[in-house]
């Protein structure tokens, strides 16, 4: 019996040591634009949108650029949604940042998208970040890669660099995240259609969104 407890103790120590090893973090992330500021101020910004302002339905997506499910949705489902619902003027799509704290670079990626958005290139940067999502699996510092994405997205790189260095949209991103928390968002992507959360046992597809939008009666002016 005593031998068993000695073995259990040794196993506990070995597993504890392994846990400490596994929790060793990678080299620190770039400082600028990577973290939420101590004070968060509402600058009135409520997310970049695609689609017409006159669209009768608004979909709000809480998004994390490092989230693989968000990437899958952006690459697989969103093109059809754009074609069927957004380009036809039925839906306006609004992006709200919800960087998850388990991701090392999602806040940084959100900031890169905001810096591109400042120059009117949010959709292009969004597509770059999600369309080349391997960066999220390497764990390597993506500063240079995001700069390349910005260049490809048609962003003025000098202004982008200054924006990223200043981290001036950090408060805006954190405000969006806190807004999401208040709306009980606890994962990404989370969608709201005209203010109502889309609850599903699986990731909604373009067909699901079409059905949801079809079910909303069109208001006649």
């Amino acid at each position, binding site marked *: *019996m*005593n031998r*068993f407890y000695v*073995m*259990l103790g040794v*196993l*506990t120590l070995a*597993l*504890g040591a*392994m*846990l400490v090893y*596994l*929790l*060793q*973090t*990678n080299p620190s992330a770039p400082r600028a634009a990577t973290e939420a500021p101590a004070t968060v101020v509402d600058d009135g910004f409520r997310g970049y949108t695609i689609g017409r302002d006159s669209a009768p339905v608004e979909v709000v997506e809480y998004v*994390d650029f*490092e*989230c*693989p*499910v968000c990437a*899958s949705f952006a690459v697989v489902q969103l093109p059809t949604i754009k074609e069927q619902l957004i380009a036809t003027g039925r839906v306006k799509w609004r992006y709200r940042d919800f960087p*998850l*704290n*388990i*991701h*090392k670079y999602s806040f940084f990626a959100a900031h890169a998208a905001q810096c591109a958005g400042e120059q009117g290139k949010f959709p292009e940067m969004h597509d770059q970040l999600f369309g080349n999502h391997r960066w*999220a*699996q390497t*764990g390597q510092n993506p500063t240079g890669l995001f700069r390349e994405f910005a260049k490809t997205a048609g962003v003025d790189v000098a202004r982008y660099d200054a924006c990223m260095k200043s981290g001036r949209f950090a408060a805006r991103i954190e405000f969006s995240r806190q807004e999401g928390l208040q709306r009980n968002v*606890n*994962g*990404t992507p*989370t969608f709201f259609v005209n203010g109502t959360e889309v609850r599903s*046992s*699986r*990731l909604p597809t373009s067909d699901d969104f079409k059905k949801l939008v079809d079910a909303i009666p069109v208001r006649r002016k």
Partner: protein
Amino acid sequence: MRHRQSIAILALVGWFVALYLGLHALGIGGELKCGTGGCETVQTSRWAVLFGVPVAFYGVVGYTAILAVTLVGLQPAWLARRGPSLLVAALATGGVLFSAWLTYLELFVIDAICRWCVTSAVIMTAIWLVSLHALRTPATRTDP
């Protein structure tokens, strides 16, 4: 006794696996050491949180309960009693069903496999099988 010792060892290993996933969910330790992107896909999906609590912590609680009951069951006063074996079998049954649901989500909903989650599911299944075997075996008193 051998059954309970085996379950204690398995529960201890499972507890560390669940704790690792739970700490990751709290943002401690950076990215999961996974080898593929599957762990991140699963851990960042909306099914990684249940009732506001990261799913991994349900595992931590489950393994803690199994380990505690088993260690009590290994005490001389409890060795010949079936109560601890019954309780562990009941806990493990719940654990296996929960693991099966999570594995189903990984395979058919999220479309990604988290190796740590699979490891936990295998450990819980092993505990369940050993606990069932223990119930079929007459309890014998084995003094130290």
